């Protein structure tokens, strides 16, 4: 159901961005980039003391334009998927894009942009999607030929992302 899925590295440059439809990719680049500020805001709000208990799922960042943006920050190699609960802001405008976020301990972020015009995705569904993303990301990291910081070209990862995005369309 995602319209755009992006993986942002720790240094806030994209490792992987994929969107449907493809011609709006630039717009999604901007969207994801602006959402990074919100991510940092939320992350810093949690404070360092909560690192251990901090969950990774940031929830709905904010509704802008037409999409919801979900943010996911996977935790590097660890499989401890802790989720960061943040109350989701209900969108006031229909047919909006919502972004959801998910942050991991290694500060790698996943951002998911969802079209809210679709059936309202439940939070759990978003979390499950992030979980899948996270697992695929760790599989990519396991590949010794993948250097952290490179763009992700893994076909398995692409297939997984495609499957997630195809569900939407």
């Amino acid at each position, binding site marked *: 159901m995602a319209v755009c899925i992006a993986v942002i590295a720790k*240094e806030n*440059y994209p490792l992987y961005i994929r969107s449907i439809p493809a011609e709006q990719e630039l717009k999604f680049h901007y969207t994801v980039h602006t959402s990074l500020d919100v991510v940092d805001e939320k992350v810093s709000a949690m404070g360092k003391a909560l690192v251990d208990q901090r969950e990774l799922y940031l929830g709905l960042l904010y509704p802008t334009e037409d999409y919801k943006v979900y943010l996911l920050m996977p935790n590097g190699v660890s499989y401890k998927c802790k989720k960061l609960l943040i109350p989701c802001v209900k969108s006031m405008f229909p047919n909006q894009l919502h972004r959801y976020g998910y942050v991991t301990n290694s500060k790698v972020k996943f951002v998911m942009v969802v079209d809210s015009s679709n059936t309202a995705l439940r939070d759990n569904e978003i979390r499950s999607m992030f979980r899948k993303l996270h697992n695929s990301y760790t599989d990519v990291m396991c590949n010794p*030929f993948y250097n*952290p*910081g490179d763009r992700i070209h893994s076909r398995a990862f692409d297939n997984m992302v495609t499957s997630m995005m195809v569900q939407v369309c």
Partner: protein
Amino acid sequence: MEQGPAAAVGTAGAVGAAAGASAPAAVAAAAAGASSSGVSAGYCPVPLPLSDSEQQCYSELFARCCCAPATSSSSGHPPPPAEVGRGAPLPGPAATAGANQVADLLRASQLPAETLHQITELCGAKRVGYFGPTQFYVALKLIAAAQSGLPVQVESIKCELPLPQFMALKNDSEIRYSNTTELHGMKCQIPYVTMEKNSFKRVDDGEKQQEKISPVMSPVSSPPSSPSNYQRVPLTYGYGKLRSGMDQMHAAPYETRQHALQQEGSTSGSHGPKPTRRQTSLIQSLSVEREPQESNSNYPDDPWRITEEQREYYINQFKSLQPDLSSFISGSLAKNFFTKSKLTIPELSYIWELSDVDCDGALTLPEFCAAFHLIVARKNGYPLPESLPQTLQPDYLQTAFLKSKWDCALFDSYSEPMPVNQQPRDLNRIEKSSIKEKTDLTAPAQDVTIDDKQALKISSVDEAMPKDLSVDTATPKDLNTLKARPRSRSYSNTSLEEAMKRVEEPPTPPPRPQKSHSRTSSLDLNKVFQPNAPAAKPGLLPPPPALPPRPFVSQTDQVSEIELHPQLTRTPSQTEESGSPVKKDLPHSQPPSKPIRRKFRPENQVMENQELSSVTGTSSVPTVPTVKPHAPVQKQSSKQKKAIQTAIRKNKEANAVLARLNSELQQQLKEVHQERIALENQLEQLRPVTVL
């Protein structure tokens, strides 16, 4: 029954294996008479009598054209659906042959294009827009007629004609997936019409380039009744093998003849002399080449299957990396190893993805063999599959490893009688090791002039495998990327290395610059050490500070001079550094040497002091102490005490000055180090950005 041309093409082409397989399979095998009557009742203006053999052959060809052999890309290598026609089911009248396949078949007949056009027109396909069974049969008949030399006319097909002969067409999928190490001699070959349009690029290019009409090669149209005919012939050397000349075709005992129940004897008569460069000729050449078969060479359609020799080689390689066969090879170890294969990193990454099924970052023995096999295949130029072939799955390989290497049960799974020709090959095969067999490829293939490219390939494979272990430097690009990438990592493993580097460096401070640095000028060193400081060597103690000229001349000075000997002895080493000052002092030094003996030589002693204070100890200075012992002893006793005291004082002063200098320099060193660390930190922070 009639379908639009588009539909015809669509059914035959796009639907591919599934539909194609179902179509002939679903259709009940019509009696020969029924089909022939169907043919006669079709759109062909002329009733077409077909002999039994012709009927069989045509139906087989039609079935073949109808269904596209599957490209066993993702699903392993199931027997091509065309093999469904094993029982020679006849496609029903509703089936239509794919235009592409028919076109390929027509081309395979190696008739001039003009002739083919005529045939197409005559058979009525152009009129109706598709190749129905009737049209197809008529076309085949016309091809036979043309090949027999008869004019392409309707009348010519009325008579009894030999079967049309088609140059063996290779299935592109076979071209794609055959492995050099998996060369299987060509079993009875059925004219596989190339149906894959998305096949291997080079194959396509080759085919398109080589659509010359070449004379008929050795007959391929073996009757379908022989089940062994349906073995897919893997294109062992792919496009490279095309260059086999006609002679090879002739010389090679065509294997199909053994199995083929070819009733026509015109096979030998149809050999055109033109050397063909079609890829399809490879099939015959393959049979001729007698490439060494792996022990389980009976898997002709499976280039992804690991042969025994290969397995042994892989296992040995595994052992070299990890002695324990049941343990893992770590990712970094495997990375270094596979990088030697000189494949690009993305490809290696993809191969890893395919082979590491449990995604644990390490390779077990089956995974390692699968990865190695994929690398070998890739190096031989074959595209990587979309997903791991079934024969490379770890569980499959695991069970395969457990079986005995020469377990014939594996062979029996494929019902294929070994052609007689292959038996001598078997002997060759068994003898060879996994690597050597490749070099020996040329040996058995004596009848065939192996293509240069093929030879190159073999040699490249030869080199690739043995060199996998050699300390081949990776391509510069790989090296650079490998080296550059650790830097691009943000604080991963390399951070430790860098930290260590940083730790290492402080202990080895850079050599001190000459003492002409500006900082020390802030000190009173210049005053203390006289202008000869720049000339001073680092590490050498500067000469003792200049003593204030003493109004009195006492032998304490002499004693002090004695005390200063150890210090002065160093200065002689500096004498060479200063030229003119020495000269100045020389006239002074020598006169003072004599007056030293005297008590009252203030001037001389002052001179001496000045001289002593100067860095440039003159060479005559060492002579001073020699003169001193001549001084009267009596006066020295009292003077000695004073001299000792003054010497002690001077030494203390000197120590103080030196200590101060030392601390200053240490401070400078710390500051420089801090600056360096700060710069390195900045650089480190800036580095990830530059990766983008």
